[in-house]
């Protein structure tokens, strides 16, 4: 058989391809690096495209808040490794006065910003007033207490904040740990103010804080570079420099951590974490986040002229139909079980896991509710990450009780527009705690008057709403926790949700990095204790 030039060319190319493929298959993993380069510099690979502003009064994105928390101090803080107990920072002590709405803070004495500007009660007042005056999105965390105009300086180191109403101590204090409550340098604000913007434009790309780090540089979608604040009043930061490089491709992050070119790969997915687990020189650090995933059920949705989701028996049936193990499986270590609305790690956490897959029970509930033949329903879901897989599991599970689910995959912009307009039937979504207190979660999941999740799912339950309000203002911690135990149980068994997992943050970290304790939120991370060993372990 005569082989033409064309055939010869194709054969030659195939041989080259197969040979090179075979060669690379035999390569295996390259030799791991054994020594940390530049032990005083931490390199982080992370997608930082969401960062908008480093002004604490504006910062509300994950990347922005991560950096802001290194640059600024707050009155109080939640610290690593546990991030559980409120600890003094700029304030040394605090108390509620007799009227139960006025808080008095004692400010740490003889502190200054790097330029020598003193930190005192006036500085704190100016910082909080500034945040409230700018009234950006992030301000709501402290704005909700109605303290605008009610912050007074008693003396150089004593500040009083009067709230509009009685709130639980933990609630108010945990809100003060949010980055919008950061203390800013008034000298720099005055110096860089333009057209009444309170220096917000300048502070977008500059630091004006007293924190352990100072911003050296921020290039949008390129990097953040932080350098240690040598005038820091607290313990000297162990790292001299922190570089957060923008690496939007997660496989590239994985390759970089394996190659030893970065110290922390921040955004790895479950599959990639699986890939690097057990690799010499890399450790995986996990922390349960304050984010949970749930199935939302619109109580008022009309389906075939009826409102099946309005009957709690139907909602219970759905909760019993779900395969929680299968859902955990697809998360591959990136989640822990959770069925109540307060996450593990937040006071008021309820570990109850009463629901499990019981198709027979679910069918009985459906029959009792008057839907023995089920009904058709639409499920909204985003097309990203693991959401489509979750939707398929839900669809499959509900088919067993004759609920015919049509999955509609739409963008987040469209999904949230429909959700906020109460236009959905079923929806797969997530919700994160904005601060380490059960109130913000109760307000979202139980209090329809706040117009968040309970309202979006048309669950107008006065009992849950009133209990939320009572717990918000309960000063007795023990009693308050009892209220949340009651409320979480009530929402668990009656609410328009099937909560199934609490997300777990997973980080790829070189073993030469020590002291890295990631926070469960997005604004509490503290790098001042992180350091690098010279030789990896």
């Amino acid at each position, binding site marked *: 058989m005569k082989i033409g*030039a*064309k055939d*010869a*060319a*194709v054969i*030659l*190319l195939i041989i080259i391809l197969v040979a090179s493929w075979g060669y*690379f298959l035999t*390569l295996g993993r*390259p030799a791991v690096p054994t020594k940390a*380069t*530049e032990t005083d*510099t931490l*390199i982080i690979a992370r997608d930082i*495209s969401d960062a*908008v*502003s480093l002004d604490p009064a*504006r910062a*509300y994105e994950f990347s922005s808040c991560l950096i802001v928390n290194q640059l600024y101090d707050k009155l109080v803080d939640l610290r690593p490794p546990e991030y559980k107990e409120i600890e003094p920072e700029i304030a040394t002590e605090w108390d509620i006065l007799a009227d139960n709405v006025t808080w008095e803070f004692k400010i740490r004495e003889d502190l200054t910003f790097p330029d020598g500007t003193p930190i005192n009660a006036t500085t704190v007042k100016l910082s909080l007033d500034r945040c409230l005056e700018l009234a950006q*999105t992030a301000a*709501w965390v402290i704005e909700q207490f109605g303290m605008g105009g009610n912050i007074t300086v008693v003396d150089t180191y004593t500040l009083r904040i009067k709230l509009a109403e009685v709130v639980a101590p933990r609630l108010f204090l945990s809100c003060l740990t949010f980055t919008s409550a950061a203390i800013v340098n008034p000298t720099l604000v005055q110096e860089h103010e333009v057209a009444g913007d309170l220096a917000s434009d300048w502070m*977008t790309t500059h630091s004006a804080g007293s924190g352990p780090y100072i911003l050296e*540089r921020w*290039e*949008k*979608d*390129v*990097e953040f*570079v932080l350098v240690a604040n040598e005038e820091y009043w607290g313990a000297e930061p162990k790292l001299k420099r922190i*570089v957060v*490089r*923008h*690496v*939007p*491709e997660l*496989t*590239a992050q994985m*390759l*970089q951590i*394996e*190659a030893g*070119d*970065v110290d922390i790969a921040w955004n790895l997915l479950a599959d990639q974490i699986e890939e690097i687990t057990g690799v010499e020189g890399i450790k995986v650090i996990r922390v349960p986040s304050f984010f949970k995933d749930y199935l939302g059920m619109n109580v008022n949705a009309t389906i075939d002229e009826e409102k099946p989701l309005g009957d709690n028996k139907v909602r219970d049936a759905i909760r019993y139909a779900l395969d929680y193990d299968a859902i955990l499986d697809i998360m591959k270590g990136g989640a822990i079980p959770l069925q109540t609305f307060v996450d593990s790690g937040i006071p008021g956490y309820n570990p109850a896991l009463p629901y499990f897959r019981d198709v027979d029970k679910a069918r009985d509930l459906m029959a009792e509710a008057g839907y023995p033949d089920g009904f058709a329903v639409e499920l909204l879901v985003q097309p990203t990450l693991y959401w489509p897989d979750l939707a398929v599991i839900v669809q499959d599970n509900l088919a067993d009780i004759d609920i015919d689910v049509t999955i509609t995959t*739409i*963008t*987040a*912009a*469209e*999904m*949230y*527009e429909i959700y*906020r307009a109460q236009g959905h039937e079923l929806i797969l*979504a997530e*919700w*994160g705690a*904005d601060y380490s207190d059960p109130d913000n979660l109760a307000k*979202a999941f139980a209090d329809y008057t*706040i*117009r*968040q999740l309970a309202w979006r799912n048309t669950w107008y339950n006065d009992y849950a709403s009133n209990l939320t309000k009572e717990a918000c203002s309960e000063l007795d911690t023990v009693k308050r926790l009892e209220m949340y135990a009651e409320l979480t149980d009530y929402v668990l068994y009656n609410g328009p949700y099937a909560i199934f997992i609490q997300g777990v943050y997973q980080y790829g970290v070189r073993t030469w990095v020590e002291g890295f304790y990631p926070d469960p939120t997005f604004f509490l991370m503290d790098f001042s204790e992180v350091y690098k060993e010279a030789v990896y372990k």
Partner: protein
Amino acid sequence: MDLRTYTARRLALMVFVFFGILVISFVLIYIVPGDPVGAIYPQAPPYMIEKITREWGFDRPLHEQFLSYLWKLLHGDFGKSLLTNRPVMQDLITFFPTTIELATFATILAVAMGIPLGMISALKKDKIPDHIARIFAISGVSMPVYWLGLLMLTVFYYQLRLMPGPGQLDPYIKYPPTVTGFLLIDSLIAGRIDAFLNYIHHLIMPSFILGLFGAAGIARMTRSSMLEVLRKEYVRTARAKGLRERIVIIRHVLRNALIPTVTVIGVTYGMLLEGAVLTETVFGLPGLGQYATRAAIHLDFLAVMGSTLLIAIIYSFANLIVDVVYAYLDPRIRYG
């Protein structure tokens, strides 16, 4: 019509083209369902969403928003990006230089690969080298960019350590101060040869991938025009005069065959200047492609409008320049 008049006429017509693009883009963006404010801040209280919507004017009637946008545009104001909270013009100035650097290198590589491939194919027509060259060119265009990018990173960066990882510079190399926004130029201004060379090293893989795309078209045009020119009588005459084959090919064949190839090069460069979101994402390059795509996904209206307008301008000018150069190179070409 002489070339000057033709150029002036094209420039004048461009204004109408841009206006048409603005109208179509505006309408398309607004009819896409979704609330960008609610999506960017899914947990913000409703009153905050309403406040932001009012502040950005998204609650105004469509025609009012468009006229307001047009008025500001005429004064050089492209509006503000919802995602970055910065003027769109500032964003474009930030991200476009990286795209220019990447596009320029990619085009150089495309030409460096495409023309020799086309020459080989033409000169060794229907022989093994011709087939190999054509398969190589078509493979470059056929392989998915994302996959090829990750493959190259895995092999050349991770396994063989011959190439650097993602980003513009190695993690431990400090950026020079930003002066022009072009990292290559800023490195030279700061006297940072290490950063200059490192960035070029970082550009090799992404430029190669984008260059492969361009190389296919360039190779094909070079091949077909060389084959046409090789059949001309003046080539036969040159050979009959006893000129060396190398002189015949370079001075007589290639010089004339490259005229149509120039148009392909110009169009390729124009397309690359629009940004290459997949390449930029895989290699972590902060370019226009990533910016425009992210804006589109998040319904960042004004950023989408600004990016679309910039791309329209680039493409229109690239085509105009190509047409003008073509007419200049080939006196037989007349417009009008």
